[in-house]
């Protein structure tokens, strides 16, 4: 069974997204630990990409800060090795297809397995292209996470049936970023997912407040938050871990209600 399943055994899962190396890897490590200590159930680690086409302005800027700071895929692998000494909850990478492909897909994915990365989220790899990475992911026991979007409609069942680890439900049209309101009928989407698989599903894109997290948790198995956390890093830099910890705690508590 996928290790990722453990993230969904402690009530609704809270999943923070953190761009590695923003502003530096030492801060990333401290932020991850603060999130874990305050109730995060799964950590989504972003490997920065020069041209992140699925991201809004906040995470784009984090990618640029991290790359300008000199972070590389190899340095991020080292970060995970260091984190795995004490971080026991599941961790997944979120990055773009070229970061994996260019490194050598097998070399990248086998390293993920070796250092304790449980899954891979590639927003520019849809169902039709998953064969590029899926056989290698299976070989090394790394879950390739499927995404389902508000426009997926007739594709939801097809994607859900073959999903592994967890399903990333994209809440809204467009790119990542804080939204004041999420209008998609997510309950209708998660209903179809549940009819087709018992793989848990978590909702991401646009979630920032405890109220939104509670709403999302009500119709799914968890909530993914990126831009709101990146904003704290942008604002507080090396002092961010404390604020991220408090934020994670408030979100996890809101989802438990």
């Amino acid at each position, binding site marked *: 069974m996928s290790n990722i399943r453990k993230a969904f055994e402690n009530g609704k899962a809270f999943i923070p997204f953190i761009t590695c190396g923003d502003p530096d890897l030492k801060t990333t490590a401290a932020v991850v630990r603060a999130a874990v200590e305050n109730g995060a159930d799964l950590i989504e680690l972003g490997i920065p990409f020069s*041209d992140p*086409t699925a991201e809004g302005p906040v995470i784009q800027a984090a990618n640029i800060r991290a790359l300008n700071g000199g972070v590389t895929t190899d340095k991020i692998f080292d970060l995970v090795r260091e984190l795995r000494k004490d971080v026991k909850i599941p961790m997944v990478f979120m990055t773009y297809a*070229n970061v994996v492909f*260019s490194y050598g897909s097998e070399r990248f994915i086998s390293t993920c397995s070796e250092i304790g990365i449980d899954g891979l989220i590639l927003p520019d790899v849809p169902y*039709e292209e998953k064969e590029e990475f899926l056989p290698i992911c299976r070989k090394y026991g790394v879950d390739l996470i499927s995404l389902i*979007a508000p*426009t997926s409609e007739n594709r939801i069942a097809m994607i859900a049936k073959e999903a592994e680890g967890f399903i990333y439900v994209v809440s809204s049209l*467009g790119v990542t970023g804080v939204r004041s309101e999420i209008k998609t009928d997510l309950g209708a989407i998660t209903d179809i997912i549940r009819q087709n698989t018992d793989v848990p599903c978590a909702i991401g894109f646009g979630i920032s407040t405890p109220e939104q997290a509670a709403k999302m948790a009500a119709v799914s198995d968890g909530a993914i938050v990126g831009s709101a956390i990146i904003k704290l890093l942008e604002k507080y830099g090396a002092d961010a871990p404390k604020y991220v910890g408090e934020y994670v705690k408030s979100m996890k508590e809101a989802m438990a209600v």
Partner: protein
Amino acid sequence: MTNPNGRFGIHGGQYIPETLMNAVIELEEAYNYYKKDPEFNRELTELLNEYAGRPSRLYYAEKMTKDLGGAKIYLKREDLNHTGAHKINNVLGQALLAKKMGKTRLIAETGAGQHGVATATAAALLGMECVVFMGEEDTIRQALNVYKMRLLGAEVVPVKTGTATLKDAVSEAMREWTSRISDTHYCLGSVMGPHPFPTIVRDFQAVISKEIKEQIMEKEGRLPDAVLACVGGGSNAIGSFYHFIEDKDVRLIGCEAAGRGIDTFETAATVNTGRVGIFHGMKSYFCQDEYGQIAPVYSISAGLDYPGVGPEHAYLHDIGRAEYVPVTDDEAVNAFEYLSRTEGIIPAIESAHAVAYALKIAPEMTPDQILVITISGRGDKDCAAIARYRGEDIHE
């Protein structure tokens, strides 16, 4: 040449967010229907002929031929099309298709501004809303085209992210499309991006090689020995090559922008300096670093200043059917001036890359050989920038 999954050999594919998948599937289905629809084809042909001015001339460049003393040189005059470049061929096709699909809004990326102007033109003609994304750097390099787009009723959005050039404009247009799909068609300007774009754009641009073939058979009674075109994403090149791919004796030569040289980092010669990667919806060659971060490319030509190349070109390179050669800024500027002086034709700085390579190979060829150069666009837009390159301080 396209297989059912949109692959050209290993290249191509659909590496895009799930949010866009139904949109590209809908586009593919509509295209497959309308490309066989006689009414659609009648309307498109009428637009191309009556509005855009097709067929474009295949002009015998006699002075250039005599001056170089080698192959007989013909120029395929895409610069004479309405809006001044080959871009209109594709745009009229896609805009008409979008309209048939019930879309009311066109979005587009643009580098030099030619594709943006063409899209704004088609939107004006067909009564559609239009938003063009253009790198901020390019809005400065090509200020006149920005004005033209606004004059035509389009909104121009300067893109400030990344290198603020063509690749960032493509990224921003893709982001915009994911946020608004139901009424919006992304009118992609080159043979790139996710399937079915490389195939659709190629089919709409293939009119160039179809005409060259007919015109050269009429004038010379034989096929050319070589066809040259500049390559950024590669739409005028694939259009110029397409109907000659089956004619193995015709050399197909794509001229890439080498910027300050392929041994420098200031280059955009993707096939010559890049390696296989996945970006902007496709697998192809890309300029990138060892970790797959896309490289900040450079060329004097805003239209060729792109770190990737269309997947069909990548495939033609892999199988050795087409050659891709680097041409530097200096060589292109020399050719820009040469064609202006010699033939009285001011080519786009993009097209001047193809002219530059012809200047190298034509003298080595024999007078019974024929060389066709596609002049993909006219050079009015570049005059101020080239003057500045030569140290003259002129402003539009």
